[in-house]
């Protein structure tokens, strides 16, 4: 099962905030978390908030220690995610076209004589 790593930066917390202090990680490296599960508690000049996990997957790396100040946009956490290779999901409409191994045909060609 191929694994893909996805890194998330400290998201824009709104109201022009440029950085936040990590108060307490709610996860540890190696944990497998669900999407939206509590990820990290951070404090800005305005308030303290808990950031939900943007991704389901295994925590591969935490890029900031507790009490460390992280600028918005800097790497925060890296997930190791199984590259989804179960049957590809159709989009909002239509069907995923089947990939035929050997396309069928009835017409035979005759190479040019010249």
């Amino acid at each position: 099962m191929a694994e893909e790593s996805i890194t998330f930066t400290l998201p824009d917390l709104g109201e022009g905030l440029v950085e936040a202090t990590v108060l307490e990680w709610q996860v540890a490296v190696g944990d497998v978390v669900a999407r939206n599960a509590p990820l990290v508690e951070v404090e800005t000049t305005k308030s303290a908030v808990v950031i939900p996990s943007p991704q389901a997957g295994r925590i591969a790396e935490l890029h900031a220690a507790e009490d460390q100040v992280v600028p918005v946009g800097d790497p925060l956490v890296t997930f190791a995610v199984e590259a989804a290779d179960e049957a590809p999901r159709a989009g909002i409409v239509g069907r995923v076209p089947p990939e035929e191994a050997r396309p069928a045909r009835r017409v035979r060609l005759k190479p040019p004589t010249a």
Partner: protein
Amino acid sequence: MTELIERAGAGPDAAGAPPVELSMQQAVNRALRTLLAEDPDVLVFGEDVGALGGVFRVTDGLQREFGDKRVFDTPLAESAIMGMAVGLAMNGWRPVPELQFDGFAYPAIDQIVNQVARMNYRTRGSAPMPITLRLPSFGGIQAPEHHGESLEALFAHTPGLKVVAPSDPAEAYTLLLQSVRSDDPVVFMEPKARYWDRRPVRLREPSDPIGTSRVVREGSHATLVAWGAMVHKCLQVAELAAEDGVDLEVLDLRWLKPVDTAGLAASVSRTGRAVVVHEAPLTAGLGAEVAALVTENCFRDLSGPVQRVTGFDVPYPAGPLEGQYLPTIDRILLAVQRTLEY
């Protein structure tokens, strides 16, 4: 048969990043991630591109990573989406709007043709339009009405617009970087039937200039000219033709405006025969443009007229009839045979 695409993927800077297995959805997603990270002016917006991550998941995760000020949903109004893109560009941004489906572009044609395409011209260069319109296009997934249209002829016919259609994940990554970094407006037509096509991909920076085509399979007896999902179909045809001792060249046109006349002429003058394949209806399709260019540039080398294998001149049909409307392998083979016997 190892497709030439694999070798093309290797490319001159083979020493680049190791290949990673990606679908076209993921390749476009990666390109958008690269663009959003490298240029703070890039904005990605359209219907359902944010929380949902796009109806084909192509913008999945971008809003979470880059925030909802640079990746955002708009209300459901295609004309306003493109009109807003014009205004954003005039305020220094590099807009990458998505119109959710080809058939939904029609309400925005006025903004695209009358504003986006000619703004640089009518302001004598003062207000360039570095806009890339991402448009999931073409058919092949049995989608409902208005979700399988091919509009390349309409866009190619519009002065001031450049038009490109990638045929595989590696191409999608490289050509999207090239399109968004270009300061000219580009319509980036993503072949939705190939979204799920997964293959080892080397993510490469653009090297060919805009307007360059690509030979994906060398051959000697005839040239198949195609773009988007039809490139894969023509490779299948070439594989079957080889069993009959016929050696077909497959040319991926890539840029539908400007068309690579030199590349086209070089291939057809060598093989002497050309078959153009596209999903759009026959009459006034881009195939007519390719046929005219071949006739004007390779007349003496041609051993027969250019053949066109296309959709019929009927409205795009519902599900079960789609397979009989789109170019089939047999129809392409018959066209090839006509050029061989001419």
